[in-house]
């Protein structure tokens, strides 16, 4: 997601989720979201088959 688009996304997501977003927190929230979305993209680009089961709880 482009950075300027991310600013709009943060504003919209905070409103949709009814989360407070003090202007003073915004830069840190954005920095954290950028890092998390980078990690998520790293994971999402890894090919897993359609049939792959998620593992919400690990069982040995």
């Amino acid at each position, binding site marked *: 997601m482009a950075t300027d688009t991310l600013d709009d*996304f943060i504003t919209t997501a905070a409103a949709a989720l009814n989360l407070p977003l003090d202007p003073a*927190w915004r830069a840190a929230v954005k920095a*954290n*979201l950028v890092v998390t*979305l980078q990690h998520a993209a790293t994971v999402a680009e890894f090919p897993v088959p359609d049939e792959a089961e998620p593992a919400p709880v*690990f069982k040995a």
Partner: protein
Amino acid sequence: MSKDFSWESAAEIAQAVESGQASASSVIDAALARIEKLNPELNAFTTVTAERARAKARAVDGGDKSKLPLAGVPFAVKNLFDVKGIPTVAGSKINRAHVAAGQDQPLIERLEAAGAVLVGALNMGEYAYDFTGENVHDGPSRNPHDLTRMTGGSSGGSGGAVGGGLVPLALGSDTNGSIRVPSSLCGIFGLKPTYGRLTRARSFPFVASLDHLGPFARSARDLALAYDTMQGPDADDPACAQRAAEPVLPLLDRGLDGLRIAVAGGYFKKGASTEALEALDRIAKASGALSEIEIPEAARARAAAFVITTTEGASLHLDRLRKQANDFDPAVRDRFIAGAMVPATLVVKAQKFRRWYREQMLKLFERYDAILVPATPTTAPKLGQVNFTLDGIDMPVRANMGLYTQPISFIGLPVVAVPVPLKPLPIGVQVIAAPWREDVALRIAHALEQMGAATALRPNL
């Protein structure tokens, strides 16, 4: 003058109490005196349960001690464990308004049923979202080897209390490394058992699909002693395995014979400091680990753990973020708010990857009994230090001290963090075993300790 038990093991204390060489009351009085003296420096304890502890010690002294493997052993718990009569603060300001817990966390009950004596609750990073051991409300836990440095977190008080000789045994939690990181920075042993092995009922959660509880001690034997006491199913924790206890103490002295041990390179060496690599090399040589392997997609595993953590954590705290955002540690709040905004589609991808990665790791355990990797990329950073440099790149300490622990807890593997006594600061190595093979990890840790390769050094306090 009574004997100084401050650096004795739990096993030695229990034996002294059982044999009548010392009373549980004298051991507990000495522990409470040491906490009173040293806690102002270490800031490990947030609550000292002195009255309760003295009453319990008297009960131990007045009863049959012959069947109590932990008779008179003082221990303390991270303050996210329920302790009857006090609110479970989980390192937060917000939870201080909670009603006092009505019952102890079950692992406390199991340890006390074996004669151990709870002496208090321990400092931690807010809501466990932390690798530093710093807490904005209670002040930082301080490293017993250098009071100007971090303990690591989030179970910082657990690391400081055991490493500083305030108690021989403590409990903590580990979602992404919160037992193994403070064990490494404080130079002690820590066990993160298999996911689902130890009940988490009546503890304050963080990330349900990654949360584990486990012990800290100054020897592998004490870890095994505590672990055996705490094992077993518990219907009050839906993730706790319906699996009978599998005692590890009888297997502890089997040595390294027949074990196939490998070192993981690649991701687990990239960014490691000279100290982390030296510690790994010493443990590899001592344990006869000849092969170097690569754990496939470890970086992606860490990324997936990061995504699951921030989103599940945000979900847990969503209502508090809406109503009490100003009462959070700002660093924790900003991470959770960002976590709340991550699309669910990406979280499911992380959970799918998790199963794939688990299958790859289980294949590795067909060829090896244990895998060695560093516990932390560096020794203890300075208190307040925001960034450190790993592999030439500046990174935040708080999010990255668990680089090497996250890909392991991500699929719930059992790990013993063993302390390597480097000077001036210790650092740990993770001994990782297959699911439900805590016995293998503890057996290796014990053998390394017998050889002197892994040792919890006593700090000058």
